[in-house]
C-alpha cells in the first residue's frame, strides 16, 4: 500500500496503528515512564481491616525517615465525595475504612523505596466494626451499616436505596405473572458469576504537578481525562478550571481506569508539597484497591410454548457493589436492560439489587453486567431447546427480533445484523454436522452457541477538525486511546471524510484544556459517538473549503467536490481544482479566517418508552444503538481431569461498518480470550471480605497456550443509520456471549449443566461424576 493513497489508508483499510512504531521500539511513554524535574514518589498505606472506625494516626516514624517529604491522612483532605452515580467516596478513608486495601494514608518521598518503607511505618488506631462481606450478610436484619450517610449523598439519578442497598432497579413489560400459564415449558435456575480482575498489564498510576499559581496538571493511566478531572475536583473540592488533565499512553483499561483510582491522592500531595508527585501502584495494590467485575447472583426463569415461541422471562439479580458505588448502579441497570436478549419475549420482568459490602469496590468491566446476565439467559435458551428437542440455533432464529421491534423497555433498534451473524457462524463452524463432535478416547467434544446484543453510545462527545496552513489536518476529540486503536480509527474517518491520506491527519492527545468534552472510552462508544462528531466536524471543514473555492472560481458551492489527495474542484471539470494548501493559505492570510470545524452532541434517544414498559430506579435513560453477535465455540473436556479447553471458536459480530477490519478482529479476538478466562479459569477468591489471590501467580488469566489459535472473527456489517460510515462499536460485544457459549458446549459435552463460573476442572468433573445438575 502506498501511504499517500487515500483509499488505502481511509475507512475500511486495516491501517497499522498510528502508534505501533512507537510501541514496538519501546519509546511509547506510559505513566510509569514519566518523570518531571524534582519529582517525588508516593506510596499508600492501605487498610488491613474491612470495616473499622479510625481512632487516630501516628505518622511520626514515617515522617522521621530521611527523604520523606510529606505524610497525609484523612484530615489533610477536603471532605468532598466523588462517584459516577452516587457521591459516596472520599479521596482517602475519612473516619472509617470500608474495605481491606482502602488507602488510609499516603506518603511522598525522594524515591519510591523510601516512600514505601515510610508508609509501612504509619500506625493507625482502629475500632473494629462488624463486617458485611457478602450481599447476604449486608442485607441481614442486623447488618452493620456501611454508609450511614447514604440517604444524604448526592445521586445523579432517582436512586431507590436504603440500608446497605445502594440501588434497586426494575424494568417490566407485559403481564409476566399471567404469562406463565401460557407456557408449555418453563426452565428456572440460579446462576452465579465471580469477581473478575481486569488485569491490564499496566498497573494504575498518576503524576501531578502544581504551577506557581496553584494550578495542577495531572497525567494518569485513565480512560477519560474528563472523568479524571470531574472526580478529582469533586473529591478535593477544586474548581475544574484549576485542574488540567492529560494522558500518556495507557496500558489497557477494560473499565478499570474509567473512574478514579489514585489521582486525587497525588493531586493533594502535589498541592501540599508544591512538587511533582508520582504514584504507581504495585500489582498487589492494583488488585486490591482499584476495582473488579461484579459478582452476580442471578435467578432466572424462562417460559416457552411447545413450538418454541418464547413467552415470558423473569430475572432477578443481586450484585455485590463492594464498598463504594462507582459505576455499579449503571452496571445493574444496564444488565437488566440486556436481560431479554435479542429476542421477542412479550412478557418480561427484570429486577435487581445492588448491595454495599466490605469488599473492594466493583465497577465497570468490558460488558458492563451483560456477560453475567447473558450467561444465565443464553444458558436457558439452550435448556428450552433441549427440553423441546429443538436445535438451539433454530430456537434463537425463531424468536429473534424482527425489523421494527423495540428493545426491552421500548428503545428503538435501527440496524440488526443478528440473522447474518447466526447464519455465518453456523456455516463456518459446521454446526449442521451436529453439536456433539468426534473426540479421541478420554475426551469429549461439543459445540456450544450463544447470541447476544450490546450497545454503543451514551453521553457527550465532540470533535474539532482544523485545517493547517499547508492544508494538512489536526483532529482533536478528547477520546483516550487505551490501546484499542481509536486514535487510528478516528483518524481514518477524518481522512476519508476529507479525502486525504491518513498520514495528512494528526490526532491531538486528549487535554481537558484544549480538547472538546468526551465522556470517555467506555460503553463501546468511541467509534460510534466520537466518530459521528469527527465526521460532522470534518464535513464543516469541507463546507468551508468549498466556500473558499466557490469564491475563487466564482461558482456555486454545490458545483464543487472534494477530490482524493486534499483538493477541491468543480464537478465535471478535472483541471479546475485547488489544493487544500491554496485554500488554507487564503483562509489564514487573506479571507475568512483559519478553517475550523467543530461538533458536539449528547446521545439522547430514550431507552424506555413509558407506554410500553415500567422502569423504576433506572440510572441511564438514554443508552445507545444496538449491536448484535453470535458465537459458536468448540470445547473439549478431559474426562479424567474435567479440564475444559476451547479448541476453536467462531465469533460473528455486527459492527455496522468495520472502519479498520484488523482492529475489529483484534477486539473480537481479545474479547474472546478475556471472556474465556472469565468462563474457565479466572476468579478473585475472597476469604470473607479479603481477596486471597491478589497476584498474577494465583489469579489465572489465559496465556498464549491457553488461548486457542483458531479464533475466527466474522465481521458482519449491518449499517447503523446515523453511525459514522454506518459504524457501531465493537469494544465489548465480543466478550459478552463467551461464558454462555462455552457453558452450552460444556453442557452438551458433559451431559449436565453448570450454572456457576468459572467452569473449573473440579466443577466440570464433579458434575460429570454426579451425572446430574449442580446446585
Amino acid at each position: 500500500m502506498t501511504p499517500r493513497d487515500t483509499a488505502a489508508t481511509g475507512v475500511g483499510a486495516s491501517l497499522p496503528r498510528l502508534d505501533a512504531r512507537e510501541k514496538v521500539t519501546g519509546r511509547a511513554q506510559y505513566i510509569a515512564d514519566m518523570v518531571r524535574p524534582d519529582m517525588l514518589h508516593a506510596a499508600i498505606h492501605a487498610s488491613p481491616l474491612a470495616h473499622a472506625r479510625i481512632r487516630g494516626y501516628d505518622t511520626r516514624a514515617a515522617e522521621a525517615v530521611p527523604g520523606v517529604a510529606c505524610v497525609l491522612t484523612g484530615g489533610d483532605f477536603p471532605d468532598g465525595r466523588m462517584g459516577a452515580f452516587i457521591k459516596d467516596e472520599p479521596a482517602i478513608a475519612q473516619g472509617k475504612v470500608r474495605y481491606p486495601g482502602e488507602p488510609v494514608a499516603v506518603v511522598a518521598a525522594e524515591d519510591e523505596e523510601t516512600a514505601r518503607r515510610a508508609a509501612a511505618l504509619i500506625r493507625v488506631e482502629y475500632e473494629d466494626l462488624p463486617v458485611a462481606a457478602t450481599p447476604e450478610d449486608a442485607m441481614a436484619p442486623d447488618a452493620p451499616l456501611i454508609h450511614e450517610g447514604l440517604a444524604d449523598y448526592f445521586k445523579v439519578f432517582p436512586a431507590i436505596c436504603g440500608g446497605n442497598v445502594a440501588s434497586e432497579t426494575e424494568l417490566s413489560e407485559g403481564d409476566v405473572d399471567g404469562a406463565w400459564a401460557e407456557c408449555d415449558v418453563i426452565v428456572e435456575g440460579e446462576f452465579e458469576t465471580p469477581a473478575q480482575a481486569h488485569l491490564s498489564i499496566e498497573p494504575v498510576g498518576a503524576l501531578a504537578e502544581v504551577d506557581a499559581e496553584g494550578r495542577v496538571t495531572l497525567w494518569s493511566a485513565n480512560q477519560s481525562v474528563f472523568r479524571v478531572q470531574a472526580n478529582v475536583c469533586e473529591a478535593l473540592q477544586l474548581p475544574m478550571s484549576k485542574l488540567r488533565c492529560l494522558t500518556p499512553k495507557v496500558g489497557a483499561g477494560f473499565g478499570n481506569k474509567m473512574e478514579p483510582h489514585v489521582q486525587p491522592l497525588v493531586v493533594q500531595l502535589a498541592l501540599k508539597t508544591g512538587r511533582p508527585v508520582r504514584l504507581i501502584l504495585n500489582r498487589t495494590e492494583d488488585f486490591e484497591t482499584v476495582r473488579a467485575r461484579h459478582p452476580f447472583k442471578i435467578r432466572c426463569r424462562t417460559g416457552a410454548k411447545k413450538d418454541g415461541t418464547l413467552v415470558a422471562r423473569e430475572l432477578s439479580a443481586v450484585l455485590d457493589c463492594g464498598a463504594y458505588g462507582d459505576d455499579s448502579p449503571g452496571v445493574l441497570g444496564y444488565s437488566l436492560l440486556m436481560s431479554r436478549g435479542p429476542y421477542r419475549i412479550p412478557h418480561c420482568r427484570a429486577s435487581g439489587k445492588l448491595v454495599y459490602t466490605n469488599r473492594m469496590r466493583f465497577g465497570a468491566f468490558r460488558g458492563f453486567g451483560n456477560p453475567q446476565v447473558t450467561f444465565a439467559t443464553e444458558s436457558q435458551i439452550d435448556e428450552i431447546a433441549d427440553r423441546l428437542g429443538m436445535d438451539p440455533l433454530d430456537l434463537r432464529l425463531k424468536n429473534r427480533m424482527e425489523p421494527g421491534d423495540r428493545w426491552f423497555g421500548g428503545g428503538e433498534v435501527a440496524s440488526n445484523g443478528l440473522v447474518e451473524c447466526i447464519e455465518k457462524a453456523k456455516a463456518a463452524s459446521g454446526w449442521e454436522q451436529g453439536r456433539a463432535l468426534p473426540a479421541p478416547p478420554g475426551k469429549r467434544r461439543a459445540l456450544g452457541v450463544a447470541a447476544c446484543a450490546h450497545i454503543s453510545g451514551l453521553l457527550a462527545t465532540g470533535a474539532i477538525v482544523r485545517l493547517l496552513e499547508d492544508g494538512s489536518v489536526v483532529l482533536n476529540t478528547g477520546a483516550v486511546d487505551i490501546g484499542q486503536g481509536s486514535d487510528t480509527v478516528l483518524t481514518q474517518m477524518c481522512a476519508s471524510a476529507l479525502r486525504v491520506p491518513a498520514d495528512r491527519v494528526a490526532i491531538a492527545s486528549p487535554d481537558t484544556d484544549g480538547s472538546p468534552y468526551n465522556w470517555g472510552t467506555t460503553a463501546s462508544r468511541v467509534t460510534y459517538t466520537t466518530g459521528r462528531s469527527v465526521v460532522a466536524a470534518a464535513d464543516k471543514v469541507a463546507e468551508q473549503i468549498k466556500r473558499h473555492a466557490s469564491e475563487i472560481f466564482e461558482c456555486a458551492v454545490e458545483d464543487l467536490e472534494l477530490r482524493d489527495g486534499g483538493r477541491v474542484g468543480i464537478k465535471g471539470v478535472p483541471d479546475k481544482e485547488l489544493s487544500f494548501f491554496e485554500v488554507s493559505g487564503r483562509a489564514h492570510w487573506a479571507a475568512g479566517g483559519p478553517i475550523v470545524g467543530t461538533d458536539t452532541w449528547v446521545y439522547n434517544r430514550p431507552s424506555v418508552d413509558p407506554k410500553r414498559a415500567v422502569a423504576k430506579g433506572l440510572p441511564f435513560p438514554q443508552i445507545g444503538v444496538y449491536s448484535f453477535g453470535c458465537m459458536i465455540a468448540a470445547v473439549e473436556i478431559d474426562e479424567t481431569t474435567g479440564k475444559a479447553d476451547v479448541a476453536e471458536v467462531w465469533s460473528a459480530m455486527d459492527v455496522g461498518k468495520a472502519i479498520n477490519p484488523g482492529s475489529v478482529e483484534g477486539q473480537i479476538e481479545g474479547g474472546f480470550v478475556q471472556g474465556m478466562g472469565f468462563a474457565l479459569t479466572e476468579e478473585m477468591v475472597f476469604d470473607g471480605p479479603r481477596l486471597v489471590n491478589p497476584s498474577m501467580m494465583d489469579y489465572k488469566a489465559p496465556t498464549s497456550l491457553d488461548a486457542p489459535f483458531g479464533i475466527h472473527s466474522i465481521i458482519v456489517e449491518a449499517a447503523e443509520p446515523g453511525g459514522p460510515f454506518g459504524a457501531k462499536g465493537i469494544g465489548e460485544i465480543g466478550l459478552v456471549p463467551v461464558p454462555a457459549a462455552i457453558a452450552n458446549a460444556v453442557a452438551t459435552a458433559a451431559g449436565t449443566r453448570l450454572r456457576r463460573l468459572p467452569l473449573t476442572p473440579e466443577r466440570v468433573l464433579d458434575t460429570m461424576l454426579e451425572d446430574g445438575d449442580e446446585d
Partner: protein
Amino acid sequence: MTGEPVTLPVTLRVNGAERPVAAVAPWTTLLTVLRDELGLTGAKRGCNQGVCGACTVMIDGEPVRSCLSLALNCTGRDIVTVEGLAPAGALAPVQQALAEGNAVQCGFCTPGILISAHALLRRNAPLSVDEVRAGLSGNLCRCSGYKKIVEAIVRASEARP
C-alpha cells in the same frame, strides 16, 4: 532507620554500550536500573514477580525476567533490551511484523513479547504456530488474544533466510 544502605558502583553492557551506574544496592533489580538509572523504559514493570513477562530482556542471548534479576549479577554480561533490537530509526523484522500485523494494542506487553520472539527467531528456521505459542507462554497479553502476535512472529520467521 539508621545508616545509609550499602551500594556499589557497577558497569553494565546494555545494547552494546558500557553503561556505568554510580550506586546500586545489592537488592536492586536489573529492571529498576534499566528504567530508573539508564532511562531505558522499554522494559515494563507489570507485576514485579516474574509472571507477566513485560520486563523480559536478553542476557547473554537468553530471555530473562529483569524484575527477578539482580543488577549486580549482570556485570560482564551482554544485555539487550527492546531499544537495542534495531538501530535508531530502523525496525527489526519482528518489530515490523508486529506493527504491520495489527498485533500491537495497548503495547505494554509488547517489549517483552518482542524479546521472547527475538529469542525464538534466532533459530533461523520457520516456526510453527505451536512453537510460537509455547515460546510466548511466559508473556501475558490482556488485549490481543495472542492470535495476531503469533501470526506476526510466524510470518517473521518465514521471511528469514
